[in-house]
């Protein structure tokens, strides 16, 4: 739960329930799990928008290439990413956690 700020709010109850039911053997793996900080990703997005470093960092390699090749989607995609990148980062973190606890 210390990582709550990295995850999607609406999934927290479900994640908590799942963690309580979870096998003890998976705890060690979860303790060492690394998540992307949405604030850091937003700063990266603000600084290096057209270079798509934010997309590469969260694992969206294909979209990152597309964003890089189009100079940040002619700047439009870059602006949209400034708004949505924190949400996408939280979703990616949640998906990563979900894969680990199943």
């Amino acid at each position: 739960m210390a990582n709550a700020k990295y995850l999607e709010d609406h999934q927290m109850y479900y994640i908590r329930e799942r963690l309580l039911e979870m096998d003890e053997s998976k705890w060690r793996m979860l303790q060492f799990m690394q998540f992307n900080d949405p604030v850091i990703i937003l700063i990266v997005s603000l600084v290096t928008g057209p270079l798509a470093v934010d997309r590469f960092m969260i694992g969206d390699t294909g979209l990152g290439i597309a964003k890089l090749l189009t100079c940040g989607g002619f700047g439009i995609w870059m602006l949209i990413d400034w708004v949505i990148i924190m949400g996408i980062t939280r979703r990616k973190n949640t998906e990563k956690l979900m894969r680990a606890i199943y």
Partner: protein
Amino acid sequence: MPLTRNRFLLYLSLACIAGYIWLALISRLKPEDIGTRYDVCVIHHFAHVPCPSCGSTRSVLALIHGDLVGGFYWNPLGFVIFMVMVISPFWIAYDLLTRKSTLFRFFHLFERTLQRKWVAIPAIVLILLNWAWNIAKGV
């Protein structure tokens, strides 16, 4: 929203249509105005330094006219964009007609391959070299 097969095909179709419209509009301009008077790159516009992809439009236009050397000179990444713009409409149509996900699976395979260190590091180095060449050329 997670990237599903249908959403991926929709985004790629829209990107291709936008690309074709962009090429149709830009090809009516004088060649010397492209990238100078009509500049869509944020980095180039504000910092007056070309980004790694600057010159891609001129590269694709050169490739459309069969000028491979010109295409390479303006930006080697233009080859990638040109291939995507030529191949993807047919691939999208094939996937839609046959209700298959071959392009979406290829996209995931491409992503996984590019995330491997032995592919990612040379790719980053090539992009940086291309960026340095762009700055040296003053694209």
